[in-house]
Structures are given as C-alpha cells and as structure tokens.
C-alpha cells in the first residue's frame, strides 16, 4: 500500500484535499510512475529514491526526504553527471541549456533515460510545492 505522502505532510490543510480528491489520486499514480515504474529503463528504483531524497533535501523538506529512504549508489562518472543535473534543474532551472543535456549524453546516458530522469526531477519539484503550498495556505 502506497503512503499518500502529500496528505500525510499537509498537516492542518488535509481537509481541503477532498476538494480535488481525483487530482490527489492522480498525483499518487504519478509518484509511482517516476519512483517505482513498471519499466525503470536505465534508472533503477533505488537510484530513483536516492534522487527523490536529494531533491526533497534541496527543497528543505526532511520529512519528504525520509519518505524516499535510500542508500546512494557508489559514485562514478554516470552518477556524478546525474547528480549535477538533478541539482541544477532543481535549484536553478532557468540556467539549464542544451549543453546540460549534452553532458548527460557524454556520460553515457541514453535519450530515453534522460527523459525518465527529467520526469523524476520535475515530478519531485511539483510534489514539494504542493506540500509547501498547502502548509502555507492552511497553517
């Protein structure tokens, strides 16, 4: 059974979630699609959790980071390139350019895996904002 982490971390704002229960269910299916997809391609479930944890931390959300408990894989050229990209797109998305996609390719990451990684990074940045917005809105 998948934990509904948005509901769990929304705090006092949880009752307002009923207004868009369909979209909260859809958000949960999207979490599964990027964290534990049926076909993970070249990005394992463990690697995905490690990336999700890192993005939660970069956004100052330790409780969400704990939801994605994972051991970071050993560092090599590929993993370093992935983490560099995760950090850039999470913290300074406006600075991303064609060269950053080229850097992933140069580290041996195939195009479908670049898209998988992009969806994971982008989803996490959605999820942290739904939680942060709810907590601000009904504090």
């Amino acid at each position, binding site marked *: 059974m998948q934990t509904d982490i948005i509901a769990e971390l929304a705090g006092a704002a949880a009752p307002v979630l009923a*207004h*868009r229960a369909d979209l909260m269910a*859809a958000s949960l299916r*999207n979490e599964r699609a990027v964290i534990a997809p049926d076909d993970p391609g070249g990005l394992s479930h463990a690697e995905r959790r490690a990336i999700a944890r890192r993005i939660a931390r970069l956004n100052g959300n330790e409780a969400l980071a704990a939801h994605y408990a994972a051991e970071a894989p050993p560092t090599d050229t590929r993993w370093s390139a992935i983490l560099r990209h995760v950090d850039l797109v999470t913290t300074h998305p*406006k600075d991303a350019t064609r060269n950053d*996609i080229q850097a992933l390719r140069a580290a041996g990451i195939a195009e479908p895996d670049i898209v*998988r990684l992009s969806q994971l990074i982008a989803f996490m940045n*959605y999820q942290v904002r739904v939680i942060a917005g709810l907590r601000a809105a009904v504090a």
Partner: protein
Amino acid sequence: MSDVVRDFTADPLVWRPYITPVVFEQATAAQREALMETPSNTKISDYVLVLAHDPQSLGERTPLFNGIMYGRGGLPRAERELGATEASIVNRCIYCVSVHAARYIQLTKQQDVIRQVFAGDTSGLSARDQAIIAFAAKLSQCPPQATPTDAAALRAAGMSDAEIFDLVLSVAIFGWANRLMHVLGEPERPA
C-alpha cells in the same frame, strides 16, 4: 541559433527539442497507449513525442495536468493561467510563458496585466492579482518561500481555501512543466 527566443512574449512560438522525439510509426504498444491521452484531432507535438520515451509517466501526467488547469469549479481558469505564467517567469521557461500568457489574455482580454507581469512591476494590478503573483513567485523558489502571510493576502482578496489549493496546484504543476519544457528544448520564432 540566432532565432532562439530569450525574452518574454505572448506570441506563438515553436518548441525545438534537444532529444530525438519518438517516431509514432515506430512507437511501442505502451508508447501508443500513452500518446492516446493527447487530443486525437491535432498533430501530436514534438514535446509529447519526446515525453513518450517514458510512457508510464506521460500517460499518468496528462490527466493530472488537464485536471489542474481545466477541472470544473474552484479557482477561475484565468487565475490558474496567471499562476502558471508567473511560475514560468521565475523558471524562465519562455515557451510556457508564451502559451499561458496568451491563454490568460484570451480569457480576460487583459493584455495590460500580462505587460505588467512581464515587466516585473505588479504595483498597478488589483490586490487579488498582486497576491496571486506574489504567492506564485514565492512558491516557485527553491526551497519554496510561500508563507502563511502570503496565503492571508489571497484570503483577504476573497479567495477560499479550495481556491487557494487550486492556485497551489497550478503553480506546482508548472514547477514540473517548466523543468521539462525549458530543460529538454528551446523556443524559436515560427519561420
């Protein structure tokens, strides 16, 4: 690359991917199924064909995005577009800005609001629009900076908790969309 657009506009632009789009005729069964989520009466865009490299995520994301931006009730559609536009400005997704600024103008006929938002000076806007822009800009920072004070400004401008939640969702989904569209391609003026 001289025709790449770097300034905010509400004019129609073309999105050029950095990643090779999936060729529909060569798509797998899973990719075709995910692509069915997009309207069948229009040509499938390069953006959607790039995302088809990850069919499970594409298939799940499309109904979520549509529900957030077009779902019935709650926050008026134009105000969701305003939140989406401001998020896209913070993340400098020129293409997303062009699409959603144009939709806002189409819905409200208020070109002047968009002009002020592009200029980064909202002092001439209504209290409600100022509160929307401030909340959207702060929620789009990393880490997010929106506070109960920002939410109180929305409530003071007449927004219900359910409507504030819709604004949160429309800003957050652009924290997602901008990180795809701006990261995986670039906008050009149509030929």
